[in-house]
């Protein structure tokens, strides 16, 4: 130990000597005697030289400066991650050292604050989705979909899950990766002109444990969600909705049209884009599923004096108790991001959340009208609109970016025959003038 390490280390030469003496060894080296010679690394790690804080900051700032972020261009990128406004209140949550540097609240008396906040988060998720129980968060919008399938898998003898093709492609990919381990087969139902056909879904669901669809769907269209849920139920499959929290001030809650579970990615509600993470995935369900839910759940109880208290509950579901019989292997989750979501949603309140949804609806409608391109699908939009481009959409993106506008996501990335479809996202941060600018640029570059 030469002491060249950064100031995160706290031992002085003198400390080290006193401590080695107390241990009864003469060198730190001796402490590692238990590590067999054959597996020791006998050279220094081949890593770049240490950087002090100032140099490190300068280096990383240079890397950050080489990225075109949503503030650096007028961006209409969405497709699963959205540039909604993150209120400054969120900074209070993300910057409080106690939230930042605590861990899973195994010792409730030490963590009442985090526990209560999670309890509040669970309530907000239940309210928005129309469910009875929510866990404390999953990794993201993709893994919670797989978790939901695992729940269904234990609820039914059936061994297939049906995914609407209009469901986020990344979500479908993750479910497909997990499914074999669960002993599940995946069946996909194509979209018809941008939305899912309830009858087709019902047919596919006949043998299925669960059906997953997304509202609004990945193509930017509003699905006939209640009909899809009913189709699934009538086929004996659990309807699972993949939803966007920022739409649920305006759209009906999945729990109110018969869904068994609701999942989604919380990023749009209170998390920065952060190039894809960390964000929080949410998972909520009707009461009957509570003992099959994956992950942490906080419950309210009392302390020895009868004072209200919060605690991790129903832990017999979890890996540290149930081990191979657990409902999931998750332990570290996304609590901090979920609390950011709680702060953002509490800041909006019911009125604000409705206003956000209505702003998106209004801007999407305005874009449909102003943008000089054909909408790719007839179904109404919520906050995204897919347009057909006369030249390859990739090329449209390239040319528009050269003019300081990122016009959106190329659906051809995921869907056959959609190389000429551009998915434009509108959040409440965009203005009518921004849409005008988009229309102007698209007119120029699509010539």
């Amino acid at each position, binding site marked *: 130990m030469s002491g060249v390490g*950064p100031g995160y*280390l706290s031992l002085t030469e003198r400390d080290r000597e006193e401590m080695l003496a107390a241990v009864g060894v003469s060198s730190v080296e001796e402490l590692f005697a238990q590590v067999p010679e054959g597996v020791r690394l006998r050279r220094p790690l081949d890593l770049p030289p240490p950087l002090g804080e100032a140099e490190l900051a300068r280096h990383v700032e240079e890397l950050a400066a080489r990225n075109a972020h949503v503030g650096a261009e007028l961006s209409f990128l969405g497709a699963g991650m959205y540039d909604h406004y993150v209120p400054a209140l969120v900074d209070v949550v993300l910057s409080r050292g*106690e939230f930042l*540097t605590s861990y899973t609240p195994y010792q409730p008396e030490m963590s009442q604050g985090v526990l209560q906040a999670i309890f509040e988060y669970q309530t907000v998720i239940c309210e928005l989705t129309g469910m009875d129980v929510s866990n404390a968060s999953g990794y993201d919008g993709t893994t919670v979909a797989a978790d939901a399938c695992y729940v269904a898998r234990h609820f039914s003898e059936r061994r297939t899950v049906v995914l609407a093709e209009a469901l986020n492609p990344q979500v479908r990919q993750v479910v497909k990766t997990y499914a074999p381990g669960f002993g599940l087969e995946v069946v996909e139902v194509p979209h018809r002109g941008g939305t899912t056909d309830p009858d087709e879904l019902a047919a596919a669901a006949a043998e299925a444990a669960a059906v997953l669809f997304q509202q609004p769907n990945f193509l930017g269209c509003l699905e006939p969600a209640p009909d899809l849920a009913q189709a699934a139920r009538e086929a004996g499959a659990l309807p699972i909705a993949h939803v966007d929290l920022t739409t649920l001030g305006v759209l009906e809650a999945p729990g109110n049209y018969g869904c068994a579970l609701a999942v989604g990615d919380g990023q749009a509600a209170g998390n920065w884009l952060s190039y894809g993470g960390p964000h929080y995935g949410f998972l909520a369900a009707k009461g009957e599923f509570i003992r099959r839910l994956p992950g942490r759940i906080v419950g309210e109880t009392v302390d020895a004096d009868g004072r209200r208290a919060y605690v991790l509950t129903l832990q017999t579901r979890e890996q540290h108790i149930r081990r191979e019989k657990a409902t999931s292997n998750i332990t570290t989750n996304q*609590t901090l991001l979920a609390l950011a979501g709680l702060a953002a949603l509490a800041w909006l309140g019911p009125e604000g959340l409705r206003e956000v949804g209505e702003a998106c609806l209004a801007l999407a409608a305005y874009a449909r009208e102003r943008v000089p391109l054909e909408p790719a699908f007839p179904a109404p939009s919520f906050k995204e609109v897919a347009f057909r481009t006369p030249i390859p959409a990739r090329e449209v993106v390239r040319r528009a970016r050269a003019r300081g506008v990122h016009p959106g996501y190329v659906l051809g990335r995921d869907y056959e025959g959609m190389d000429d479809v551009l998915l434009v996202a509108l959040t409440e941060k965009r203005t009518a003038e921004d849409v005008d600018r988009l229309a102007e640029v698209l007119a120029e570059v699509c010539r």
Partner: protein
Amino acid sequence: MRLLPEPGRAWPEAPLLFERSRPGRRAGRPPRPDLPVPELPDGLRRARPPRLPEVSEPELVRHFTALADRTFGVDTGFYPLGSCTMKHNPRLHERLAALPGFRDLHPHQEDEAAQGALELMWRLQEMLAEIAGLPAVTLQPAAGSQGELTGLMLMRAYFADRGEERDTIVTADTAHGTNPASVTMAGYKLAKAATDARGNLDVDDLRAKVDERTAGLMLTNPSTLGLFDEGIEEVARIFHDAGALLYYDGANLNAVAGISRPGDMGFDIVHFNLHKTFSQPHGGGGPGGGPVAVRETIEPFLPVPRVVREGDAFRLDHDRPKSIGRVRGFAGPFGVFVRAYAFIRAYGPALKEMSEAAVLNANYLLARLRDLYDLPYDRLCMHEFVLSARGLKREHGISALDVAKRLQDYGIHPPTVYFPLVVPEALMIEPTETEPKERLDAFVEAMRRIAEEAAEAPELLKEAPRSRPVRRVDEVRAAKHPVVRYLFEEHPALVP
């Protein structure tokens, strides 16, 4: 709602957000474009608005401040929670992760417009590969347990590709719960290997359990007992001879960075816990990061997308025919990567000093506590160690839980208790490298006094904690009558 605390009480009550709510209050006012709002198709409009709290901004700030005050973190004090590596989280990292070029970067941004982010990820992969002693790394998994699952899926893909049928994974009886849970989720059968008297894997027991149906071993090394497996080379031989693979649960990597590399130990697949070894703040439960490093032979199966370098340019490669597919959205929790990258760059080759300090701190505590509590495995430890309150239990009816609760009164976060399962009344203690000697001495002093109190005034322990916002919490009631969300009108009053 009650905003007035009992006079003289240091911890005022903290009402729920919903109890602070008043109809018509609000904090945020989103932009309202001066445009018509279209009608929605029938049945899609929400019938009743969600009952989100209605609270003004001043009260929201106070609410979250009060909740933070009721939470103990590493910033508050000593937090030797075994197996969790609760080290100092450098504040610089929060600044860096919040740079607009990272924080506001859309994950669908074109590769050529995200070169800085891609380069950071590529460099992190390279550094993790060097630390693991394995050539290829995926950053995608969201945490250690997802790393485990990914590793097991990689095994399945690997054997399927070779046309081998293997259905069993061996784990140690000291294994963390995520190991067996991952085995099941991956569709494997579980076999448990015993621990010998020195705390190493019982090699004979192991031999008996490994055959041509064995896909692999999952092992933490050092183990959850904080002991390095002295027979690791033999263990590796047993599995490799049987054509099986070895998976390294990297949760305890903090003990051996720069000292012994999992790849050199014979492991084929390794996960990292970026939130442990590499200082992503634990955030009250998360986020984490669980990158996985593998041998060349397994590289083709890694999840998509992969971050690859081509000359001076970097890009996301989705075109990997043999890949197991995607395990998470995008390329992984990028914000976590920024912190881990900065952490490793701050040490450079001196990263070894991190592990040396972690191991010295642990052995110092062990040396000073061994006479006060039972020590099931009498060896030098690595970065953590496990004591037992067995003696206190026998002599004074004091459990590990009582010790933990009393530690709270001394302003210290309790260690992990009742894990690993092979040790009765276990107290699993991990100080980490960032603690100064004074903190360790204060902990020893507290543990000494508690041992005395156990004999002289056991009620102090039974009635602990007394210094926290609540006293001991009734977990049984919580599980018996689950209240897992606010019930509005039907909710029990804050003060009955």
